């Protein structure tokens, strides 16, 4: 059976006022691929993901999920149901405790959710991301930065999505915790054989996780290839990223 391309972006442009944020972005993401989008701050990486998620309207171009073009808000919602997103700021809900945050999607979208069952599943996910079950009743403000990040990851994988998206997963973490989070993401994506997109400015993270890398600069795709090609690339920006 031929597997359909998971995500395809064709000539995507995004303008805010007269300023062009994204210029003619095109790429494909095949099943089980892990795409890492790298670029410096303000390059347009997060905006690209927001466009893919439908949180920002695109000015022109097309986005395809599983071969189907996304246009209406109904389509966007269907797509969002298949995605698991871990935000840069974690975006955990302050007024809900850890397990409620993790199980949020099912807790508030099922007609009569089984609280005990969802709590048990949430605790399983907590353990999967390396956190003890006794933090399930704690609120996000009572957790450390690294713990919050893991809870964010647990929430993104809770409903077994088709595609995982990690926005700057190591931002604000110390180098030791960053390494742990990178290997956790690698383990989750590889074990579940999921398609994933990670956004980062950290080239080490990109080289470790990616099966495909896209370098964005000034809102346009400056370079794309796999980690091996990146090592051999003569592109100036890639070299700067690699050599620091």
């Amino acid at each position: 059976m031929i597997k359909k391309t998971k995500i395809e972006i064709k000539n995507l442009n995004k303008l805010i006022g007269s300023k062009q944020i994204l210029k003619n972005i095109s790429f494909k993401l095949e099943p089980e691929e892990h795409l890492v989008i790298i670029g410096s701050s303000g390059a347009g990486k997060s905006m690209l993901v927001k466009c893919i998620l439908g949180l920002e309207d695109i000015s022109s171009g097309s986005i395809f999920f599983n071969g189907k073009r996304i246009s209406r808000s109904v389509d966007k919602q269907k797509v969002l149901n298949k995605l698991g997103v871990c935000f840069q700021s974690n975006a955990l809900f302050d007024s809900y405790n850890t397990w409620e945050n993790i199980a949020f999607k099912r807790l508030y979208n099922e007609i009569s959710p089984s609280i005990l069952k969802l709590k048990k599943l949430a605790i399983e996910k907590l353990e999967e991301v390396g956190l003890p079950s006794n933090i399930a009743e704690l609120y996000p403000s009572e957790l450390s930065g690294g713990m919050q990040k893991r809870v964010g990851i647990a929430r993104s994988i809770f409903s077994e999505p088709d595609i995982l998206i990690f926005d700057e997963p190591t931002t604000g973490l110390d180098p030791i915790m960053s390494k742990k989070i990178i290997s956790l993401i690698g383990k989750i994506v590889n074990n579940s054989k999921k398609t994933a997109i990670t956004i980062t400015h950290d080239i080490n993270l990109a080289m470790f996780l990616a099966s495909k890398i896209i370098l964005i600069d000034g809102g346009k795709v400056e370079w794309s290839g796999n980690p091996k090609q990146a090592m051999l690339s003569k592109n100036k920006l890639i070299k700067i990223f690699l050599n620091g």
Partner: protein
Amino acid sequence: MKILFYVALVGKTLLIFLTKVGIFARFTWKILLHAFTGPFYAKIFLTHLINIGFLSLPVIGLTAVFTGAALALQIYSGGTRFNAESVVPSIVAIGICRELGPVLCGLIMAGRVASSISAEIGTMKVTEQIDALYTLNTNPYNFLIIPRVLACLISLPLLTLTGDILGILGGFLVGVSTLEFNPANYLLNTVKFLELADIISGLIKASFFGLIIGVLGTFNGINTSVGAKGVGKSTINSVVWSSIFVLAANYILTEALFNK
């Protein structure tokens, strides 16, 4: 050239104003649309009904008692000038039910509730929690906005009714203890001249004020710009605009309900 500058300035201001009106119209349209299409989060709505309605009872109650008491003193002091002290009970009751009850309740709730709604939703906006809601298949209009607006819409008339009763009680206490009114006569005069229409008109006003506070609080919250400064600005805007709109709506509704 100076004229052109001023024309451009007026044009630019008008454009900004019309853009804001457009954004607000789209926001209210979305509230209506999502209110009828669901889902409705009953548990969230009840939580807000308690936070907005029940927890506002102490401040509304105290304000109403003291306002009723002060009103009784003022009317008595003014009434003695033309031997009309006996009107104190009826004027206190009519004044509180028609005007002071709903307006004071509206202004207090604009300060207490519109600000907290705006700050809460604004903080969620700047910390990507609203984006997270979308990705978790939860529409922020259904989850955050409609329960709050509905809670304001229902709470305000109930709080106003409580305020009316406590305001009349405040007037009664001062009337009986300080102004030496006969308690039975005071109550009789209160009931004698107070019509059901006086109470209902106040509650109609309060419903509109509730809608204004809920819609403006959530609107400013969801349109918060980046950072803590943005949250502060949207909180101020929600209180200022809610208060202005409550007072303006009070005049329009008074004109519509009483100017026959």
